[in-house]
Each structure stands twice: as structure tokens, then as C-alpha cells.
């Protein structure tokens, strides 16, 4: 138990990185996923094709492969660089991987939400002269989002846990720090493990509660 207290600042730092990875990737994935969903319902076959291909490729590739590709492929081979600091650079590369992967799931959740919006809503919007983009932005997506707040919460919870895969390219988030601490405190493996597991629960349980509450509060009454 003492090990947990001794290493508390290190653990806190590690979880702070986990939180930053989650929030940054979640935000990018939300934007990208929304754009992809818009592409998948657009009248242009080319856009639909790109959206569908993206989702099928990213959703069916193991996240570890996506992250390692971002670290090695983008980082080392293509020399994509965000910062001269190695750790900052790999943090951003892992955010790219996490966002790209999560966006596929966000896209599908939003697309499911679009399907819950009665077709008459979009027809009425077209009938007053809104363009496809305005229709999506002002009428369809706002209602679609509200229908899928709870599933989006699940995706965010999954993303929080998925950030541990960034350890594969050496990003010092919670799980990598946990492994490091195992080596330093061989006598307290179980306690350290339990501490980190608790840390994740502290992040994910409120997320689930918050999104459940938002889903109820923002539901569109028909």
C-alpha cells in the first residue's frame, strides 16, 4: 500500500496524460466522425464510398496496429513531427491513431442516430429551401446527436481504456507507468494493479453517469 502513496505524484501524472489523450482524441474523433457520417448519407456516391471505405478499414483494424503504424509509419518513416520533444511527438502521433480509430465508431453511432430522425423532418427542411448541408447541420444532426448520446458515452469510455494502447509506442500514460512501477515495487504488484484499475473506474464511471443523464435531459420529444 505504501508504494501507492509513495508513487502517487507519478500515478497522478500518468492519469493526467490518460485524460489528455482521451479528451484530445475524443474531440477529434467527434468532429471527424460527424464529417464521415455526413459523407455516408450524402447524395454524392464518391463521398459515400470514401466514408464507407474509411469506416470499414479503421473499424476492422486492431487498434494496436493503428497506433504502431502512427508511431513507426508516420513518426519514423514519414517523419511526421509535432514537437522536438520525443514524448510530446509520440503523444500527438498516438492521438492521431486513437482519433482515426474512434472516428469510425463515432460515425456509425451518428449514422444510427440519423436513422432515428423521421424522414419527414428532412423533407420539411428541404421543402422550405434548406440546402443539403443546412439540412444536415440544422435539422438532422442536432436530432441525431441527441438520440445517440448514450452510445457516444460508451464510445468515450472505450476510448478512455483504449488510450492504454498508446503504451505500445512508448507514451507514458497510466498502463505504461503501471508496468514501470511493477518493476520498482515487485512486492506490491497487486496493490499497484488495484490502484490503477480504481483510477480507470474513477474516470469511466462518472462518464457513463454523465452521458446517461445528458441522454435523458436532451432527448427530443416527439
Amino acid at each position, binding site marked *: 500500500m505504501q508504494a501507492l502513496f509513495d508513487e502517487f505524484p507519478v500515478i497522478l501524472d500518468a492519469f493526467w496524460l490518460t485524460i489528455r489523450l482521451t479528451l484530445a482524441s475524443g474531440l477529434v474523433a467527434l468532429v471527424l466522425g460527424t464529417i464521415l457520417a455526413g459523407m455516408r448519407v450524402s447524395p454524392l456516391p464518391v463521398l459515400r464510398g470514401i466514408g464507407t471505405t474509411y469506416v470499414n478499414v479503421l473499424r476492422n483494424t486492431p487498434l494496436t496496429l493503428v497506433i504502431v503504424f502512427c508511431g513507426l509509419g508516420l513518426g519514423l518513416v514519414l517523419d511526421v513531427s509535432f514537437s522536438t520533444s520525443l514524448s510530446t511527438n509520440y503523444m500527438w502521433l498516438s492521438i492521431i491513431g486513437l482519433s482515426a480509430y474512434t472516428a469510425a465508431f463515432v460515425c456509425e453511432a451518428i449514422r444510427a442516430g440519423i436513422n432515428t430522425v*423521421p424522414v419527414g*423532418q428532412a423533407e*420539411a*427542411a*428541404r*421543402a*422550405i*429551401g434548406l440546402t443539403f448541408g443546412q439540412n444536415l447541420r440544422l435539422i438532422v444532426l442536432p436530432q441525431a446527436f441527441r438520440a445517440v448520446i448514450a452510445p457516444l458515452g460508451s464510445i468515450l469510455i472505450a476510448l478512455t481504456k483504449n488510450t492504454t494502447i498508446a503504451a505500445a509506442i512508448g507514451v507514458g500514460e497510466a498502463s505504461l507507468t503501471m508496468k514501470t512501477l511493477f518493476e520498482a515495487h515487485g512486492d506490491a504488484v497487486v496493490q499497484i494493479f488495484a490502484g490503477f484499475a480504481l483510477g480507470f473506474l474513477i474516470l469511466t464511471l462518472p462518464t457513463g453517469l454523465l452521458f446517461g443523464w445528458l441522454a435523458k435531459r436532451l432527448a427530443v420529444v*416527439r
Partner: protein
Amino acid sequence: MTENGDKTPLVVLEGVNKHFGSLHVLRDINLTISRGEVLVVIGPSGGGKSTLCRTINRLEAIDQGTITFDSQPLAVEGKALAKLRSEVGMVFQSFNLFAHKTILENVTLGPIKVRGIAKADAERRGMELLERVGIGAQASKYPAQLSGGQQQRVAIARALAMDPKMILFDEPTSALDPEMVQEVLDVMISLAQEGMTMMVVTHEMGFARRAADRVVFMAEGQVVEENTPEEFFTNARTDRAKDFLSKILTH
């Protein structure tokens, strides 16, 4: 009957055909709607009435033939089509008010986003229209909080807010409880009396008699008969129309 405006054609359909798969829903439709005219389309279900109504603002594309609106062929897509639609109001059977917007926002959205009118002006005009259809007191509520009849009156106000050149009514009272039908018809009758060009698909024969300048009877995708309401209801020429009228007017 009111005077028919200047009688110049606003909508002209020529040789219009439309299929849904193997179903031939519109067969060689030729129809002209004049400015200021109130055209009522009646006929049995599945006869193509709603489809016909929806082709005029191109919610349904046609397979053959031409439709012109205000002397221009209907735009096919993009900004030009959106502009056409902004000039043709539409009132749906199921109201289709935007469920996540307040009543006032429903009425001001088009003017603000499509016409670029300032929010304050759009709201002032929106309130006038809501007052006119008797819903002023409900402006800040959401559609689900209103009765069907109230929602449909809001939908009419939403169409009017765009200052349309005509309004299409696609069975506007069919989804309403019986006691709410009249309040919607009253608004439509007053519009008709003010000279709004209207195409109304309806089963309300009372409305057709009272407000229509012309009745079109459609069955199996064809215009079977066209006449003044007086002539049509008392002296239908075709057996198909007589048969239809005998079934509905005896109740």
C-alpha cells in the same frame, strides 16, 4: 368563388410520368395551375394524388415529361432547387414540425437561413403569422406540446413565413382528430379567400365545395376528371368519379 387573379399559369405539368418500381403512379399528367387558383385534388388512396403534389417541389423526381414553375423548368438539384422550394410552401399530412426547435423557431428558420432576413425581423413577422393562425401564445413551446390541429396551423405559418408563390397541401387534415379538422380548414379557407395559389390534396369534400376553384379527380395515376366543384359534385361525368363520390358522400 373568389376571382381567379390574373389567370396566368403558375405551374404547368406536361406529359408527366412517374414509376415506383413496376408501379406506374403518374400516367401522362397534363395540368395547369393558375395564379390565385385553389385546386383541390381528390380521389381514392393510392391514386397518385400525393405523389403529384410532391412532384411540384421535386420532393419526388419525375421519369418523363416537364414541369414548369413560374415559366421556368423545375431545377434538378443544388442551390437552384433549394430556391424553387423556398418559393413553394408545403404542408404535410404529418405536420413535420422540427421537433428540436420551438414553435417560433420553426417559423423563423427558413426566413433567417434561406432568405437571410435579420433574426429580429423574422421573429416579428413570425409572431404575426402565429397570431394569425391563433398560436401566438404557444410560440415558446415545442411541437410535441401542441395538439395536432395546432401543429398543423404552425406548419401553415411556417410555409407562409417564406412568402411563397403557392402552397402545396398534402392531406393536411388526414392525421387529425375529427374535432381539430375545422380549425385547420378555417385557416386554409381564409388563405384561399386572400388569393393564395393552393394545391390541396384532401378528402374534405366540404372544403372542396367551399374553397376550390377547380376539382381534379385522380385514380390509378391518371387525371380522370377536372371540373368546377359545383359541377363535379352534382354532375360527375365519369363512372369512376361517380362511383367514388357515391361511396364517400353517402356517409
